[in-house]
């Protein structure tokens, strides 16, 4: 691969990553409630960081640092999914109702007591 092509690919991947990150930020600021904020937080950031990692990897080449970056990214995948779940669960357990549009039933209500938890 020529050096110019590599640089172009780097820039493309980097810009994609930045786009995803900006998307995450915008989503975080625009979404109406915390459940919907979780979506951009967990997804866009993960993809964005993966994309930027690919851009970096193109520049680094096959090096031991690449493996280290991959370990970081793997860890990020696992932890961001788990922490997203943990945050969502803590809200769900404490009875935070999801925001919903008019006419949409946000939750197949089975028993009222679920929402009266602490």
């Amino acid at each position, binding site marked *: 691969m020529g*050096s110019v092509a590599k*640089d172009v690919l*780097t*820039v493309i991947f*980097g810009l994609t*990553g*930045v786009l995803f*990150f*900006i998307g*995450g*930020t915008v989503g*975080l*600021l625009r979404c109406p409630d*915390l459940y919907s*904020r*979780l979506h951009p*937080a967990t997804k866009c*950031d993960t993809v*964005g*960081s993966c994309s*930027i*990692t690919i851009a*970096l990897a193109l*520049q*680094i080449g096959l090096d*031991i*640092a690449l493996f*280290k*970056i991959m*370990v*970081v990214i793997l*860890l*990020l995948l696992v*932890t*961001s999914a*788990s*922490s997203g779940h*943990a*945050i*969502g*669960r*803590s*809200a769900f*357990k*404490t009875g*935070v109702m999801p925001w919903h549009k008019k006419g949409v039933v946000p939750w197949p209500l089975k028993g009222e007591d679920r929402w009266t938890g602490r």
Partner: protein
Amino acid sequence: MSDLVSEFFLVVAAILVVNAFLCLYRGAAGPTIQDRIIGINIVNTKTMVVLLVLSTFLGEELYLDIALVYALLNFVVTITISRYIET
């Protein structure tokens, strides 16, 4: 690494820091505590990516360890808070 690309990465890092600023707004203003955690979580992820970028740009692999520690401890804080809230 050519100069252009390193400049590009610095711009990326700066954009990410600006992004982190905006996320911090959610962290500081979010109505519920979970909102704040999400905001801070994103700030942390961005910080980590900035570290990765900086380490490549400065050519110092030393900073990769720091990024790894970030990823781990971000998780610790999130789990601690959410675990405490839900009980």
